[in-house]
Structures are given as structure tokens and as C-alpha cells.
């Protein structure tokens, strides 16, 4: 809290010193004005709340999809040599490519609706989940698997009753990283012919040098990312209260 206050004060001081022109470096006060302006009157036909909700929806749908696909793919890669051989090269190859690079392809393939936007976020997020899931599966202590076998568990039971729960803490680690990735891909996703959304707001306001609105958008994305991170941590504490006791 103190850090936050200090940052705002420093920000105001730098802005007030006029080292940078106001349009390039908006003060907290003018950012707040822009915030109120977009909140009440919207910007280019879209209110701030609409922008926020539409972005939240895109990120959430993509994120949930990425977690489901990532966990399934990650587990499948550890259980089947064939799946691993097919999927892993793609994963390694795609990882260093920035999501922006896919946009032209995605537009050609999926048009300009919600589909390419959600898919872009999903594609950037899935690898994080996959990697953490495979880590979790592989780090399952061997004695745990042997004990289960000893007590009569078959392959399927070992997977569902020992390996999956053992991998949960790592899956949650992946989910926490992934939420940041999802939100940071949003701006790129909303470059695709969007007419609302926080990412769209930032880009649109940027081209018109409305930096107050840009900063508003940035802060809101930060807050949303943070809130979702908190939500995942709460979920984590409910689902894997034993994570620190492994």
C-alpha cells in the first residue's frame, strides 16, 4: 500500500516537472480524469465497463480452455510416447514465437470474430500449462506409485488416484503463470479488428495520443490480472492445502 502511494506521488512529481510533454506522460490526475471520462461517456462508442467485460470474457474463455487442453495434453504426453513425439516439437518450436506473429494467419483462418482473439490467447497460454503439467506428472515420487501398485492399483487407477493429485501443485503453478500470459496476450489479440475491449482501447487511444486512456487501460489490465491471480490462489488453497507439505 505504501509502495503504491509512493509510486503515485513520484508519478505526479515527474509529470508536474514537465520534463516530458503532458501528452506523452500523463499525470495521475489527468489519468483519473480520462478514467472518469471513459467510465461515464465511453470512448468511440464503447464504455469502459463494456471494454472490461468483453476482455474479461475473452481472457476467461481462452484461459479455461487452455487449462483444460493443457492438462489433458500434458498428461497425454507423459503417458504416451507417440503423443509426446508428435506434440513436443510443436511446443518447443512455438514457444519463442510472439503471439503477434500468428495474427495474420489467424485472421485468414478464422476471420475477424471472437474466434481468432480467443484462440490467440489460448495458443499462447497452453504451453505454460502443458510444461507445468508434465513437470508435475514426472515429479510424482516413485515410492508413491510403487505403494499404489503394491496395494493393487492398475495403470488407470495410478494415473487418476496418484499421479494426477500429485501433479496438482505444479498444475496450479502453471495456472498462476498462465493467467499473466493470458492477460498480456490480450492487447495483441484485440489488434484483430476489435471494436471494444481493454486491449483495443489502449491501441485506439494510443493512435490518437490519448495517453490518459492508455494508462487507464494498462492499469485496469494489471488490476484484472492481479484479481484473477488472487482468485486462483484462493482456489489453490482449497484444492491443494497440502502443497507445502509434500
Amino acid at each position, binding site marked *: 500500500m505504501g509502495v503504491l502511494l509512493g509510486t503515485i506521488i513520484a508519478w505526479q512529481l515527474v509529470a508536474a516537472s514537465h520534463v516530458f510533454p503532458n501528452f506523452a506522460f500523463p499525470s495521475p490526475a489527468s489519468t483519473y480524469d480520462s478514467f472518469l471520462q471513459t467510465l461515464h461517456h465511453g470512448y468511440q462508442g464503447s464504455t469502459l465497463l463494456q471494454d472490461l467485460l468483453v476482455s474479461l470474457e475473452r481472457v476467461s474463455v481462452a484461459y479455461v480452455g487452455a487449462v483444460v487442453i493443457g492438462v489433458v495434453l500434458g498428461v497425454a504426453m507423459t503417458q504416451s510416447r507417440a503423443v509426446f513425439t508428435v506434440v513436443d516439437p510443436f511446443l518447443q518450436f512455438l514457444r519463442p514465437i510472439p503471439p503477434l506473429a500468428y495474427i495474420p494467419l489467424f485472421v485468414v483462418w478464422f476471420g475477424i470474430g471472437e474466434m481468432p482473439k480467443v484462440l490467440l490467447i489460448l495458443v499462447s497460454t497452453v504451453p505454460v500449462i502443458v510444461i507445468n503439467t508434465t513437470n508435475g506428472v514426472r515429479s510424482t*515420487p516413485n*515410492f*508413491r506409485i*510403487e*505403494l*499404489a*501398485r*503394491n*496395494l*493393487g*492399483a*492398475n495403470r488407470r*487407477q495410478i494415473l487418476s*488416484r*496418484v499421479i494426477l*493429485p500429485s501433479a*496438482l501443485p505444479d498444475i496450479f503453478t502453471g495456472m498462476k503463470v498462465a493467467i499473466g500470459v493470458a492477460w498480456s496476450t490480450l492487447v495483441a489479440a484485440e489488434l484483430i479488428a476489435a471494436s471494444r475491449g481493454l486491449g483495443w482501447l489502449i491501441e485506439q487511444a494510443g493512435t490518437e495520443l490519448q495517453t490518459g486512456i492508455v494508462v487507464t487501460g494498462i492499469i485496469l489490465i494489471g488490476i484484472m490480472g492481479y484479481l484473477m491471480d488472487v482468485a486462483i490462489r484462493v482456489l489453490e488453497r482449497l484444492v*491443494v*492445502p*497440502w502443497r507445502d*507439505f*509434500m
Partner: protein
Amino acid sequence: MLHVDRVFKTFDGDDSRRVTHPVFEGFSLDVADGEFVAVLGPSGCGKTTLLRMIAGFESPDSGRIVFEGVDVVGPASDRVVVFQQPGLFPWLDVRRNVAFGLQLRGRRIDWTPVDEILATVGLAEFARHAPYELSGGMQQRVALARSLVMRPKMLLMDEPFAALDAHLRHAMQVFLRDLWLDVRTTILFITHDVEEAIVLAERVVVLGSNPGRILGELDARDVHPGSVDLLDNADYRRLRHRVVELLGEVP
């Protein structure tokens, strides 16, 4: 009950350890029904390897391991291991940990034996606790209960009390001994603690290394973990002396 018959076992060496000496070269051991056998020996002599072969986690290169008239080909719940780490499933409470094996046969189970065995190990009131809320000794008792509830014909224990402090270790020894007197399950108990082997088992098998072989066997029926002061116990002193003699033969 158990025949280990002229077993050979060598691990494939990795590149870092090019030389691999055989762990066992024609090792044999018989265990009778209801016996409590301790296997004692220096580190690296092959105790864990022997136990893992009997459990079915490793297979011998040659020779046979016959349990209840049938060749051991893999792990089964009639021979249950208890390792040094309790290895409880942290996402299940104590009661569900104990029920783990029974629930593999079907989710709907009769909970009576589970609760009975929890009472036997003195943890009835901790049934709903998470494993990490228990002390090391309590966790090891849950692990024991999880094995016992399967009504195994044989318990294979690999230094199960080695991680416990001296006081708790003694309590667990008394507990295990009483349990054995009660249920009479055959027990193969591995340890490198001479005292533990002598007080617990009826028969102590002393192993030597390179390759793993039996240096001698002792009849330890007359010494129990309850004994107040072991050093005043002539039987204990004699057995202990004999073990030291046997182990001393190793170069």
C-alpha cells in the same frame, strides 16, 4: 511360505560406474508362515534389493522367488511393503489413506475394517486429520494400517523406523511386536540397527556384502522390546556379541 531360491541379481551399471559387482550370486532364504524375521547387514549389502525382489518391484536375473507356492512376477497386496518414508497420500485424510487399497476394488466399501485397524494403531480420533497434521510416528502407524487393512500374508518392512527419534522408535518397536503377537502376519523386517533386529524378530539373518550372502542366523526369540534394560539381559548381550562377531568377519 516364502522361498528365495538361488537368486542372482546384478544392476546394469551406468557409464559413471562402469564396474558393477553382482548384488546377489545364488542367494537363498526361506521364511516360514507366521515368522518374524529381521535381516541385518551393512549398508549396500543388498537388503533393499532383496525386499524389492520379494515385493515384485525388481526381478532376479535368475533363480526363483516363490511365495505361497507361486512364482513372484510383480507386486501384489498379499505382500505389502512399508518403507522408511510413510508415503501417505497427502490429499486424502487418514481414514481414506487407510482405505486406499480397499477402494481400488470399488469405491463403495465396508468401512468397519478401516475403523478397526485405525483403532488398533491407536489413531481412531485422528481419522479425519490430514497426514501432514500428524507426527512422523503417527504417519508411520497410518502407513502400517494402510498395509494391514489389506490383510497381507506378509509384511515387508524396509527400515520403517529409521527416520524416527530413539524414543518413538522404541515405542513403535513395542507396538509392532504386540501387533505381530496379535495378528501373526509373517514379517520380513530390514534394519541395520543391531538392537532393533534382536528385540523385534524371532530370527535374525545377518548379511554380508559383495555379493550379498548370509553370514549367520540367530535365534532371538527370548529377547523382546519390552525389556527394561537390555544391557542387563544376558541373552541380548550374547546375541549382540555374536552379531558383531559375524559382521567382523567382513573384510
